[in-house]
């Protein structure tokens, strides 16, 4: 018979299978290092059950403290987003390789890389040491986190634009600011607004966290409730964080809808 009849419709891919096997071996090794034992698992289940039973019902009696924390979280997110976006605009522009010379792109890219590679919590620790406990450290942290994240996205968006309008403006002798305003900005404005609303959302999430290391916001209340084993208050705080983030996600979608038509 011909070879075609014997050919299987789905040929095995030996490279991919070897990859799966390697992945499996790594998983076995890594799980081995985690020291998961049956008694520990049972203790964990027991602890988890007690933990959950203490969380219900959530204790909203100290709602004043809760509201204060949420308000501070919102303040941190709003201020950090405003300054973060404002600072990322020039840095992102300076990092765009199609508009800027190499002496401008390299420093800007280095700033973005450093801001991106450290987790906000590490920045928060350093800023808490530098400016003391409180929302100021949180604001500075999230400004740096915003620069790292949207600075990169801004730069990529600018690098993807069509250069024809830019050349036309240049040929007409437009100065640099007009070039930006009339050739670059119209092409990227919608994406910028998308990034900025996303960053506001991300800052809202992160500002609930920076408080854990003392940088202001609801995170501090959360961590102290955890350390005092007040799990019913912890549950109340978690529920209000989720509610706050859902609200901010809804607002971000609405704002994007306003600008996208």
């Amino acid at each position, binding site marked *: 018979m011909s070879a075609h009849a014997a050919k299987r419709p*789905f040929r095995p891919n030996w490279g991919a299978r070897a990859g799966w096997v390697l992945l499996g071996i*790594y*998983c076995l090794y*890594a*799980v081995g*290092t*985690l*020291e*998961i034992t049956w008694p*520990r698992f049972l203790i*964990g289940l027991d*602890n*988890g059950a007690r*933990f959950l039973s203490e969380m219900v019902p959530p204790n909203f009696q100290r709602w004043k403290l809760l509201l204060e924390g949420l*308000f*501070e979280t*919102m*303040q*941190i997110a*709003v*201020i950090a987003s*405003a300054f973060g976006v404002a600072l990322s605009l020039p840095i992102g522009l300076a990092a765009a390789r199609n508009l800027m010379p190499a002496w401008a792109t390299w420093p800007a890219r280095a700033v973005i*890389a*450093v801001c991106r*590679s*450290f*987790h906000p*919590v*590490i920045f928060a*620790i*350093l800023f808490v*040491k*530098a*400016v*003391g406990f*409180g*929302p*100021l450290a949180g*604001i*500075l942290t999230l400004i740096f986190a915003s620069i790292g994240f949207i600075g990169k996205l801004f730069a990529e968006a600018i690098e993807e634009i069509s250069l024809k309008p830019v050349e036309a403006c240049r040929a007409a002798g437009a100065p640099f600011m007009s070039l930006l305003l009339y050739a670059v900005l119209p092409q990227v404005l919608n994406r910028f607004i998308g990034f900025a609303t996303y960053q506001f959302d991300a800052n809202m*999430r*992160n500002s*609930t*966290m920076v408080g*854990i*290391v003392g940088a202001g916001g609801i*995170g501090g209340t*959360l*961590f102290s409730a*955890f350390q005092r084993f007040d*799990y019913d208050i912890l549950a109340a705080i*978690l529920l209000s*964080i*989720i509610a706050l*983030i*859902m609200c901010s996600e809804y607002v971000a979608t609405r*704002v994007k809808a*306003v*600008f996208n*038509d």
Partner: protein
Amino acid sequence: MTDSATPRKWERFTPAQRLARFGVFLSMAVLLAVSMRTVSVIPEFLWDAPTQMADLFRRMWPPDTASYAENVHDALVETMNIAGMGTMLALVMALPVGVMGASNIVRVPALNWLSKLILVSSRSVNTLVWAILFVAVFGPGALAGTVAIGFRSVGFCGKLLSEALEECDKGPIEALRAAGAPWPSIFLKGYWPQIAPAFWGITLFRWDINVRESAVIGLVGAGGIGVALDTALNLFRWQQVALILLCIFAVVIAAEVLVTKIRQRII
């Protein structure tokens, strides 16, 4: 009527649109102003910040490279294991939830909503907060960190996965169904080849994020390099802190380069 006398005026936006935009800008400005007025910031501390930062960096230099072998290396390996296993755990949990959320596969709106609820609550809670919860459950250590990373990543992976599933081309699925293929074959030969690039892209992207996050969850006791960092911070051993920060930086950059290279190869 007045076609030649008054030239028609074209406008990019309707008055309602312009009003909406103005409203958004106005409320942003008001929010910012209110926040700036009410936030409890002590300006002296801000002016003092550059001095303090300079002092901090002076104490950090030079990094204490001698202590790498004894308390940084093992913690770094543990961090990578937490990131890898957390991502695997997330994928195992994200597959069923993602399939449940894809409205073209599971045609029960209630299940779609349930999946969406699971994914949103997973994403709303920060990794650090998940880590706190699981440290309370499992006790301090890498296990709590792994589970925390997994639970946080489910929301991310599941959402992208169910979006990828919803964008699948119906042709191959209908062909398989017409040929009488059972459900596992439809999934494996119809859906999987279509979502595989997206799946690996999501995995790599999330692993990259998890490497960063697993470096800090140790601050609340969930294992990895963060524990060493926390100890060094509490003992004010700034030169050791500098070494740990440099190591985290190197690992994060290496992970990002690796992910970029693999993405170019397989996608």
